[in-house]
């Protein structure tokens, strides 16, 4: 497979760098710094040492036979990104970018966060490396993820409430970009997903691809074969591309991304970009975007803040277009059902984001090859979602 993105940051017709001129030099600088550290053994050693001794990698691969039995007839393995320090895959990227920022001599870090997981991961990386950290978070998300706001503050980060627009993730990114335009000389923006202008989608993907590299290796050792199917939820798309990237070249592996189906198919009620979106440009990248007929960005809905976003990483848009990855969606209700079932059957409380991948499988397990091997990225743990599920009054089944 040809190495993508191309020199201008495109995956086919998706991607690119659509930002105000002020940021162009910073994007070039970041790309140069990244290319330099990619060849630097000392950097790799430092990064890998932090992953091993601080983050807790490699993460476990857990077989989940009782949950699998609810879905169909196959072997199910969970890639346990929930066991990472800070509770999700986000830390893989936050540490990597913070280390690059340090080498670029940027002492101030900014980031956006929706559910708070990327904010917590970035605040953690900054505490570890002794950098100033400012996190932008929509006021709506701050209210629904109070605990993570407090965690970020405990870690020494400043959390700035964003009161513009829909006051969620999209607006937090707007505000982070405005900060970056203003303070670009001293500040690095740690974008949390495979989104935004080139080189972010490439760099975030590369840091997250450790997930699939480990998973392939673990599956091979356990089963003496390749997986038949890999499944992950897709918000911006970093945990999924992280799982899929090393599997792309194995054409026999069926790759499935699961978007947030929310409350239903009408615009504003979901975050399923492939069924409801159109080609456009948002936050620096050309991709599939939920928008109205006049090109105004639509509001989205998902029970999980981490999937509640109107655009999708450009590499996903490309892989969907060429038919390498299939994308489906899972409703709020089905994700909640999976949240409960995995907790009861396997003793693992999944993040509501990850529960979308499991939820799709609950309904569509029969489409999976008889006695096949399936790996699902359990991208985060559900502790952050427990108060929200409690507040809904959903009683555990027994």
């Amino acid at each position, binding site marked *: 497979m040809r190495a993508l993105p191309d020199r*201008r940051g495109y995956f086919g017709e998706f991607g*690119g*760098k*659509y*930002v*105000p*001129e*002020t*940021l*162009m*030099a*910073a994007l*070039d600088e970041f790309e140069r710094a990244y290319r330099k550290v990619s060849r630097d053994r000392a950097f790799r050693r430092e990064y890998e040492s932090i992953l091993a001794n601080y983050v807790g990698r490699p993460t476990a691969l857990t077989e989940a036979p009782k949950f699998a039995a609810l879905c169909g007839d196959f072997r199910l393995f969970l890639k346990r990104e929930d066991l990472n320090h800070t509770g999700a895959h986000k830390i893989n990227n936050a540490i990597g970018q913070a280390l690059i920022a340090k080498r670029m001599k940027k002492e101030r870090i900014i980031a956006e966060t929706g559910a708070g997981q990327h904010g917590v991961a970035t605040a953690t990386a900054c505490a570890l490396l002794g950098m100033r950290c400012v996190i932008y978070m929509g006021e709506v998300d701050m209210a629904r993820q109070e605990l993570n706001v407090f965690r970020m503050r405990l870690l020494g980060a400043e959390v700035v409430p964003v009161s*513009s*627009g829909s006051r969620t993730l*999209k*607006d937090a990114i*707007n505000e982070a*970009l*405005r900060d970056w*335009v*203003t*303070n*670009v*000389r001293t500040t690095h923006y740690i974008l949390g997903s495979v989104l935004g202008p080139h080189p972010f989608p490439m760099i975030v993907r590369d840091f997250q691809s450790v997930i699939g590299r480990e998973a392939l290796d673990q599956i091979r050792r356990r089963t003496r074969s390749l997986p038949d199917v890999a499944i992950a939820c897709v918000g911006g798309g970093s945990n999924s591309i992280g799982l899929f990237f090393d599997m792309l070249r194995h054409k026999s592996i069926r790759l499935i991304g699961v978007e947030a189906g929310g409350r239903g198919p009408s615009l504003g009620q979901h975050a399923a970009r492939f069924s409801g979106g*159109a*080609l*456009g*440009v*948002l*936050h*620096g990248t050309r991709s599939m*975007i939920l*928008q109205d*007929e*006049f*090109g*105004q*960005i639509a509001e989205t809905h998902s029970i999980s803040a981490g999937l509640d976003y109107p655009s999708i990483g450009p590499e996903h848009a490309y892989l969907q277009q060429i038919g390498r990855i299939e994308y489906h969606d899972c409703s709020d209700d089905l994700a909640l059902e999976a949240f409960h079932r995995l907790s009861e059957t396997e003793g693992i409380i999944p993040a509501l984001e990850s529960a979308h991948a499991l939820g799709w499988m609950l309904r569509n397990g029969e489409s999976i090859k008889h006695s096949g091997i399936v790996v699902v990225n359990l991208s985060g743990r559900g502790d952050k979602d427990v108060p929200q599920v409690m507040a809904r009054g959903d009683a555990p089944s027994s």
Partner: protein
Amino acid sequence: MTRTAKLFKRLRTERRCGLIAYITCGDPDVHTTIRIIAALERAGADAIELGIPFSDPIADGPVIQAASQRALAGGTKIGDIFDIAERIREESEIPLIAFSYLNPIMRYGLKRFSESARKSGIDSVLITDLPADEKLSLGKLGMIFLLAPTSTDARIAAVDRASDDFVYYVSTTGVTGARKELDPTLLERLGEVRKKVKKPLAVGFGISEHAHYQTLRDRCDAIVVGSAIVRAIGDGDAAGAPDRAASVVRRVLGR
């Protein structure tokens, strides 16, 4: 040659620094926008930037963000911008520059946009989140690109090449918004850029005072005043908006 290009030619001949006024179309409403533009021209504005409201204006500060929200909440559509231009063209030859983010134009269709814009009397277009490397084909519309304090020499050259009517120099790292003082490093950097750019040069972002105009008038071909005008428009009822906007232009020009 577009009306915009002709204006800059004339400004050079007259050895005068022009004033470009930005307004957010549809704030407070489309009818008032038309009256505001006429008032701005009478007050001495040489060209008008027609801001197309967008839901996610990442390059704009709070004043223009709020104006965009008001315009969208009032139901302003991209088609209204063409109506506004047509109405202005009935009585005026003032250069009209569409000022937009890329997504609404993409969604409308590039070809359709350039045709509708030309037909309605729009001369040029500036797309905030479209760097010079990604220049689009927009028919006969003049394309204007931004230069920033962070632009490297290679980028300065690329922006100069890609820009048709003039180059828009962003005075400071940051978003749009009136500032009391000019960026202290602006004059030195402007001198450097001036030497490297062949096209006419306008300076914008943060410019709102007569003192700014006096400082810049001999150093660029035009200044752009945006947030100060937009703030004045929002600062009272619709009926008084044209007068309030015009008084900002007169104040900056010192008339």
